[in-house]
């Protein structure tokens, strides 16, 4: 029910050639189904049971998986609704739309599969597959830049993932030496069960491989280098999916292994690694924002910054994990919305240069307004959700007795804040460049985006009980 729809959509799109519009629509409807399925999962989790299925229960959906499944299916639905091939002049021809529908759905499918598969081996396979499928979509418009971006992405991404595989192998090796061959040995549950008896040094080595490997996909510095290129060159829906959930899914994999390692050698090791890489990411993200001329890259760097923030949060004990997960959800909502809006801006202005975009409020008032709101949300202002989650994160940091670290992060965030708000001003005001048609164009895509922003505001003002329950369960799982 969760995995079906995207797969179906992909097959349908692959089957029908040339592209027809109804594929887009069916796909959109299907995507809603999987979103519904995710919600059902959520209900189950709250009821307190963990769904498992398949031989050797290789599919398993606990709270963590559910959160990710929600994010993925939500952004997937957004992409399905707002992606190419829904009619209207969206700047894509049939072939491109078909390609998008095929690989986009596969991409979504793979991410969903990654988060619900109990077997870390399959998890790895799925994430590797996400690299391939998403890479296929980056050069939807073949240009030098997009080809370059996709090559960098696939090369760095594959190498990283390969290293993650090395990590998986090492972890398996550790386990095998402990308990001999077992068919279900790669099942996370099994690993967890016997984690406490694993050999510390080996599992630490394994975790390093895992962290570097999946960290590459998550956009952690210093393996983040592919991210700005890919995000800025990819078509809007793909950027949204990548920045919104791909990073989250990669982090998910890291968290799974973190749980194992923590059970084996205690939390200090992972905490220190997380803090080191997290702070580095925040710093690099923030400073890259200071002098930034390209708004899509701006968003990409802010994604790096937020991933780093989540990482730091994971290192700050249960409170921190709670905050990090909340932040992950908020960031998914905000960033995917932002990228869709950026896509609209790009479609109108034909440039990704900040200096080229002026008078956005005049040219497209609603898009501009939402864009502004989104930026304000991303830089963590009330009443948006990210303010609350960042706030909770700092609270956790002080509670965990790391005031200096928090001070540093606060300073870095201020740098990011000042830079981004400056860029925002340059885009919003002034007179639209010559040749830019004034007026809002097709307005209906704004509805779901507006809903996302509204959701952010809601998350900024309140924390619904079901969500709170879900997050608390996740904290138990992550075991930090």
């Amino acid at each position, binding site marked *: 029910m969760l995995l079906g729809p995207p797969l179906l959509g992909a097959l349908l799109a692959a089957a029908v050639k040339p592209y027809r519009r109804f594929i887009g629509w069916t796909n959109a409807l299907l995507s809603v189904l999987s979103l519904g399925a995710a919600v059902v999962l959520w209900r189950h989790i709250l009821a307190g049971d963990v769904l498992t299925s398949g031989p050797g229960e290789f599919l398993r959906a606990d709270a963590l998986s559910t959160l990710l499944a929600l994010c993925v299916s939500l952004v997937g639905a957004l992409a399905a609704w707002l992606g190419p091939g829904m009619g209207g002049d969206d700047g894509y021809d049939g072939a491109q739309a078909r390609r998008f529908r095929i690989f986009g759905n596969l991409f979504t499918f793979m991410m969903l599969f990654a988060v619900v598969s109990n*077997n870390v*081996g399959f998890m790895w396979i799925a994430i590797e597959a996400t690299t391939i499928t998403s890479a296929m979509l980056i050069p939807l418009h073949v240009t030098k830049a997009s080809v370059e971006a996709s090559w960098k992405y696939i090369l760095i991404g594959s190498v990283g993932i390969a290293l993650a595989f090395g990590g998986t192998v*090492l972890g398996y090796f550790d386990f095998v030496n402990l308990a001999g061959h077992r068919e279900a040995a790669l099942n996370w549950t099994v690993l967890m069960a016997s984690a406490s008896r694993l050999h510390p040094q080996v599992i630490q080595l394994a975790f390093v491989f895992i962290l570097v490997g999946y960290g590459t996909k998550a956009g952690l510095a210093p393996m983040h280098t592919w991210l700005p290129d890919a995000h800025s060159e990819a078509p809007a829906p793909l950027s949204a999916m990548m920045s919104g959930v791909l990073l989250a899914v990669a982090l998910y994999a890291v968290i799974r292994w973190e749980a194992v390692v923590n059970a084996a050698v205690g939390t200090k090791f992972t905490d220190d690694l997380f803090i080191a890489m997290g702070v580095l990411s925040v710093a690099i993200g923030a400073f890259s924002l200071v002098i930034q001329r390209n708004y899509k890259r701006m968003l990409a760097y802010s994604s790096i910054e937020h991933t780093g923030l989540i990482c730091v949060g994971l290192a700050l004990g249960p409170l921190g994990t709670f905050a990090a997960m909340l932040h992950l959800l908020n960031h998914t909502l905000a960033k995917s919305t932002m990228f869709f809006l950026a896509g609209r801006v790009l479609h109108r202005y034909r440039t990704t240069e900040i200096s080229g975009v002026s008078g956005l409020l005049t040219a497209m008032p609603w898009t501009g307004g939402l864009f502004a709101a989104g930026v304000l949300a991303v830089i963590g202002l009330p009443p948006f959700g990210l303010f609350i989650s960042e706030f909770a994160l700092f609270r956790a940091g002080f509670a965990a007795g790391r005031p200096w670290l928090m001070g540093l992060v606060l300073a870095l965030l201020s740098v990011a804040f000042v830079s981004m708000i400056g860029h925002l001003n340059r885009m919003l005001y002034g007179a639209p460049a010559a040749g830019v048609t004034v007026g809002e164009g097709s307005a209906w895509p704004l509805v779901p985006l507006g809903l996302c922003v509204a959701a952010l505001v809601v998350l900024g003002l309140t924390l619904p009980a079901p969500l709170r329950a879900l997050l608390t369960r996740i904290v138990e799982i992550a075991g930090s």
Partner: protein
Amino acid sequence: MDSVFSQLSVMGSSLVLIFGLILLWRRSVTAYISAFTWQSVVLSGVTAIVGYFGNDHELYWVAVALLLLKAVVIPRLLRRMERRFAAERELDPYVNTATSLVISGLLVLFGYAITRPLVALSQLPTRAGMPLAMGLVLVSLFVIISRKKALTQVIGFLMLENGLALLAVLGTYGIPLIVELGVFLDVLMGFLVMQIFIYQIHETFESIDVEQLNRLRH
């Protein structure tokens, strides 16, 4: 019995590593491809041996798959590409051969140092080969870094996977078959996608020199 086994496995893995070093030493893409092919052959051989002595019959299938995929299919595609881009056969790495050999030697040492706890922990007769596998992983990482042509980077990447496969085989007698098959599928798909991109690079840039992919900055 076990001694023979360990002898063979160590010899095989060292052969695998040596092919990697040969690749560093040679200059033409053709040589690269052949080195990679032979490496894959030896790798599948090692897998078969481990399967025989460790009487784990799944590994035979793995070996066969390896042989087909990495010693037959992929090399063929590689050769086709290599013929297509015949113009740029000669390549000049960032690091000259001598230095890169020295560096790779150091990397292998590093691999040894890193894998000490693994070797200490494991009881398998194949354990002595693991440092070599780790060394190969690092060396092929170095290959990817230091080579300029997209094609050679792909080859480096494939070698990296060989190294990992070797590690898996030596350390754990292979991961579960079904996962292994999934991995193979991914490798194939990944390779195909990379191939597509190499063609695209060649179309858009009239060359497969990665150096010129530097317009996206900051």
